[in-house]
């Protein structure tokens, strides 16, 4: 539960501006997704490995949505998804999982971990944007 160390954002109030957490270890894709969402008015946090993501989820206020690559160093995207679902503050955050493998069994695994949507890599930037907008209830500038 939130402690006294950081400013507590009440769960009922909407976040000041739409924010997004992107976790991707490939620097090119990470930079691209970061720029995509920044241009659309999201406060964007880009992290490069699963461990940093887990730490972020434990410490920071929830974002409007999260985009996670599956193959991440230290803790994969599905583990981060599970952590998000298990955290009291982040539990309702929509999660889009990016995966190079799209066989039904992989999609099933992602959904069981708690992913809201699974998107294939290589991905369509506008589709990703639309999915995030749709899942987070129409945020954005």
């Amino acid at each position, binding site marked *: 539960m939130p402690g006294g160390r950081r400013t507590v954002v009440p769960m009922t109030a909407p976040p000041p501006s739409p924010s997004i957490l992107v976790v991707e270890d*490939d620097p090119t894709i990470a930079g691209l997704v970061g720029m995509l969402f920044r241009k659309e008015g999201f406060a964007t946090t880009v992290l490069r490995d699963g*461990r940093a993501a887990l730490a972020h989820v434990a410490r920071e206020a929830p974002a409007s949505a999260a985009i996670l690559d599956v*193959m991440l*160093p*230290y803790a*994969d995207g599905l583990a981060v998804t599970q952590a998000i679902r298990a955290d009291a503050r982040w539990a309702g955050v929509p999660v889009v999982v990016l995966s*190079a493998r799209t066989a039904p069994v992989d999609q099933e695994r992602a959904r069981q971990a708690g992913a809201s949507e699974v998107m294939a890599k290589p991905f369509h930037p506008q589709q990703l944007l639309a999915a995030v907008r749709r899942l987070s209830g129409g945020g954005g500038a």
Partner: protein
Amino acid sequence: MSVHAALEAAQWFFLGYVVLLHLAYFALDAIALHVIGREVEATAGNVLPTAFSGLEPPITLLVPAYNEEATIAASLWSLLQLEYPSFEIVVVNDGSRDRTLQVLVEEFGLEPFPEAYRISIPTRPVRAIYRAARFPTLRVIDKENGGKADALNAATNAARCPLVCVVDADSVLQRDSLQRIVRPLLGDPTVVAAGGTIRLANGCRVSEGFVEKVDLPKSWLARIQEVEYLRAFLFGRLGWSPMNALLIISGAFGVFRKQALVEAGGYRTATIGEDMELVVRLHRQHRLARRPYRIVYVPDPLCWTEAPESLTVLRSQRIRWQRGLLESLAANRQLLFHRRGGAPGWLAFPVMLLFEAIGPVVELSGWVLSVLAVLLGGLAWQAVAALLVAALGLSLLLSVSALLLEEMSFHFYERPRQSLALLGAIALENLGYRQLTAWWRLLAILQWASRRKARWGTMQRSAAWQGKKE
């Protein structure tokens, strides 16, 4: 013949031996320099993200463990993260007397599993087989103590994939090590085994089973070993591999076709250097039967390991290695100068025998004789000094060429102080370290000769280098 003439002849002999030894290694060096361009070329595709087609052959990782309670969990967590489409892990608890098995059960939620265990290679009895509840690809075999070779054989029995990758419980791999080491076996069915590069983790920052930052070890003892490893791999292996005469694939990281391993009879339990013995045996069996095969070294895939930081542990390691070398050669002596022996029988084996196996005897007796001769007035100190200069110079040249190969391939060192430290290590190596290890290896030869049964020296586990687990 007068004593004097005998001494002089001996001096010429030692000079000749030193020159010959270095000529052989320079030849390997030249081959390595020639080949390294091709190896770097083969990795040109690494700049773009890997796409797996799904047709990659599945691999079983074989992880023998004895008294590894401090590090086994971290190791397995990192192995589970390897980037490869399809692989399974078989850990063998070789009758550990510490809490290795309990740690595994707790960390991974192991449950007993009614495995239909098939005995292709006989081993000491298996007590139970477990499977991890959350990771169906992880299985653990609990068996009575039988040694590393025995453990590997048990793991092979349980392996379901056509390829097996042997790793030590404390090997630290990179995420792409598995996909890189398997490359030679993908398209070429004659390749039966492949080895990768082992480098020292001693100075590196290791976090949760992966190397985050590469740096030189802090202690001079480890730095000297760093140079040794660079020599051993970057031209030791890279030199022999193109001739299909590679006699060693380290047990810390190597890949084999399971069928070839089983047909060869598995690992030999009566020997202490089981990794080398297997490879020499594969050469012998295939060459003598005229079966086409290849055993290769790929510099590209990396495995990091901890080198001994204390003289006691180093001593037991070097004695073990020398005994392993002698046992491997002795068990496969049929290969030496055999009609169908090819490069392994006519080049690699004799070189190993002459320079690695007998080397310590020649080296030490050379020094002892020289010093005695000077003291007794039979020889001028100038002669000994000149010999020293020659030996030092050649050794320095060989080691520096290993540094050059490193710069051409991995180029992990960026700062001048690191190169300076390595040069210092090279100097120190020749002023005492070599002599010390030669003495230990001589002891090993005597031990082997008297056929004393070996006990695998206990290597102190220092958990500190693994980094703190969060």
